[in-house]
């Protein structure tokens, strides 16, 4: 394993990878800082170039963006109470309180170091567990894959912010859109209206760039905007004092474990893990009254959790080939576009790629730590750029990217239509993340469903003989019931967890 890892680092003698890692983390930090566009938007805009940079390069770039955005998102949460990312919403609660009490510098440092520690722990976990889990995952058959896909979709709908009913609508829309094109089992053409253009289905790149790239650009352009006044702390004000460090360290470790665990299971792990960590820290604390008034643990725990979840989320993708989060759906798309199908044999078949990506994550995390603290001032100054000025650039990039991918004007039209629809639907509170994840999971879900039907000869009791599948379904149903029960209780007593959210007057709603 050490040799493999050394081999992975050796691949960085190729400066292309180093540059891609740097580009990824810088870009990730930028989109993390900017409240308008998130990591999904950035990845979808870049999907068009993934075949040029190759599968390893794409993984490095996308991992950099993902990790970078969780770092960057915390900066604006702490300084401005404007979470750049949904996963930084919790950080804003105590982080911004620390800023108001003149401890902005230590808050930023604690967030960055907690992220770094968690990132490292999750990479080590990925490194240790992925190869072992692969040998377990290979045993999973079509019924288990079907159960996993269902669980992924159900949990996303149940646990995301916003209306579960609206998520279900978007999931159904995504599944429907995914059926256009060649039927994976029999090769029949479906919903192609007799054209060859639709024979291969809708281009995933076009759809994603539409609903994230274009729609996000339109949403941002329509927003009222006034420049934020930010005073970034000086370098020598960055160090936390001894007491802060003592409080932060165990919280960061617990946050890492919570994040890692949640990252492995279906659902919007990065966001959930921050809430889970915050609640845990508050419960464990000897002075829970400090939470909401600048508790150090309230910054360290969630910041560690979202980073650990980001790293852990790569495990199901690499081991099962199933993305549990929309960001991972984009990573999967980048791999598929390069002809790489991740799955239980991925680590065995592509050891160089796996270990290079692990090495890339180490390097990226280190870059982020080094970049983030000294450059906080620079990144926050970006908030003074009017978003309207960036929109033409983003839209142009999308059009060029989509066209370059398939040399097809039809794809460009699909993107623009998807963008417009996405823009309107988002305004009404429909989640595009659910839509995209459904589109990505549709082929796996359909293939495994039809294989299961073939295995069982259409006899549903066959599933009872597949305990693993039953356990997965049962877990999903339990979570669903629990979240419904919580929602009911909250309706009667409307300030349990939502109190945490409503206590902070964010100027923009966090995006999923």
């Amino acid at each position: 394993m050490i040799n493999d890892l050394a081999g992975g680092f050796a691949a960085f003698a190729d400066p292309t990878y180093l540059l891609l890692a740097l580009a990824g983390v810088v870009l990730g930090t930028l989109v993390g800082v900017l409240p308008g566009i998130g990591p999904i938007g950035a990845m979808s805009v870049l999907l068009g170039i993934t075949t040029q940079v190759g599968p390893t390069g794409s993984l490095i770039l996308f991992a950099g963006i993902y990790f970078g955005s969780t770092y960057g998102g915390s900066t604006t949460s702490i300084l401005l109470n404007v979470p750049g990312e949904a996963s930084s919403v919790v950080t804003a609660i105590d982080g911004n309180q620390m800023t108001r009490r003149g401890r902005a510098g230590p808050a930023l440092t604690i967030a960055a170091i907690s992220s770094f520690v968690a990132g490292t722990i999750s990479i080590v976990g990925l490194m240790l567990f992925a190869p072992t889990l692969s040998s377990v995952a290979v045993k999973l058959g079509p019924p288990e894959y079907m159960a996993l896909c269902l669980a992924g979709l159900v949990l996303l709908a149940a646990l995301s912010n916003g209306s579960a009913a609206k998520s279900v609508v978007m999931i159904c829309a995504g599944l429907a859109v995914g059926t256009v094109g060649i039927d994976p089992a029999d090769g029949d053409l479906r919903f192609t209206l007799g054209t060859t253009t639709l024979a291969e289905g809708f281009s995933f790149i076009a759809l994603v760039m539409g609903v994230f790239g274009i729609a996000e650009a339109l949403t941002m352009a329509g927003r009222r905007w006034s420049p934020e006044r930010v005073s970034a702390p000086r370098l020598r004000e960055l160090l936390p004092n001894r007491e802060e460090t003592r409080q932060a360290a165990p919280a960061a470790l617990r946050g890492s474990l919570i994040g890692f665990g949640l990252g492995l299971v279906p659902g919007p792990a990065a966001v959930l893990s921050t809430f889970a960590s915050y609640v845990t820290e508050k419960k464990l604390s000897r002075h829970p009254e400090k939470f909401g008034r600048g508790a150090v643990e309230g910054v360290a725990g969630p910041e560690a959790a979202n980073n650990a979840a980001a790293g852990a989320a790569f495990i199901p993708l690499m081991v099962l080939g199933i993305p549990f989060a929309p960001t991972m759906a984009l990573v999967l798309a980048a791999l598929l576009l390069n002809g790489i199908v991740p799955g239980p044999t991925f680590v065995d078949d592509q050891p160089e790629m796996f270990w290079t990506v692990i090495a890339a994550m180490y390097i990226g995390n280190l870059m982020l730590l080094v970049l983030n603290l000294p450059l906080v001032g620079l990144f926050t100054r970006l908030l003074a750029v009017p978003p309207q000025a960036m929109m033409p650039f983003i839209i142009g990039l999308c059009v060029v990217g989509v066209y370059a991918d398939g040399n097809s004007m039809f794809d460009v039209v699909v993107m623009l239509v998807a963008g417009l629809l996405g823009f309107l639907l988002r305004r009404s509170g429909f989640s595009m993340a659910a839509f995209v994840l459904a589109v990505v999971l549709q082929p796996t879900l359909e293939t495994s469903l039809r294989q299961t039907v073939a295995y069982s000869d259409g006899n549903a009791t066959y599933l009872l003989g597949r305990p693993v599948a039953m356990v997965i379904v049962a877990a999903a149903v339990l979570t669903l019931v629990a979240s419904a029960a919580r929602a009911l209780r909250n309706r009667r007593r409307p300030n349990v967890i939502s109190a945490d959210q409503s206590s902070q007057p964010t100027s923009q709603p966090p995006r999923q």
Partner: protein
Amino acid sequence: MNVIPTAGRARIALVAALTALALLATACGSSDSGSSYPRRDVQVIVPYPAGSGIDTTTRALVDIINDDGDFGHRLQVVNREGGAGSVGTTAILNAKPDGYTIGVVPDGPLTLVPQTEDVSYDPDKLTVLNELIAGPIMFVVPGGSPFKDLGDLVDAAKAHPSSITIGEGPLNYRIPADLLEQKAGVKLKRVKFDGDQATTTALLGKNVDVGVMQLASALPQLSSGKLRALGITSADTVDLVPDVPTFKSQGIDVEWLAYNTLIAPEGLKADVKDKLASTFEKALKSDAFAKAAKKLGLIVSAAPPEEAAKHLKDKAANAKQVLGSSK
């Protein structure tokens, strides 16, 4: 490995610029440059994405021809994927028959798919050039499977009808499985998988008893011992896997090859056809291609146009019997 596409693009840009210059020169200058083909670069359409098996094969061959330089102009591989090969095949067969658009296709879109689907091209209206690859299909089991040969499989299937699971996929896999069922008089439980990698995973996890796949895809797992081959559908045993017996030698009369063939639109001029066929034949018979093919687990055919055309016709007729009877 990732540098190739970018370098390719730069090269394409350079080539495009040079071509533009050359065209300009011809336009300004003489009309007596005559009928000599080729006068510009030739597009080789591959109906599958970059990095797929057929794409790798085609690129290896095209590189040999371009490095050799005797053709006079360059060949450029263009990937037009989608529709299980129908998008690219349409693009080739509906192009102008001027020799500047040719393509390498698997035989499926020509011999099998038109029998079950409506397609947007006429599979009989084409010019068949050289056959590149003729690959047999194998029936593969996990290393620890109780089946030692096809006889064991047939016996088990007779004892437990419709309960031995077999992982198959597209028509090129489905038909050999159909043929086995017909010839041995058995019924298997058929489960479709999405490509050889998915079938391999299912075999390794013991989620299917038998898998149908190409030699090239099975090769790495065969040499590591995780998978074992019961039989191969070629006429004779194959050098790459000398221990795997043919179906025929085990008393099951199934012969089945999947071809990759160079084709052009119908109505290609004789001199253009000859030039292309001889260029490709030379490259196919080169040591460099033999070496590349061995590494990829491919069996070079290099059959000349008439023979290649006959292979396609025979296969379509063969498939018609099976597909007709199973409908």
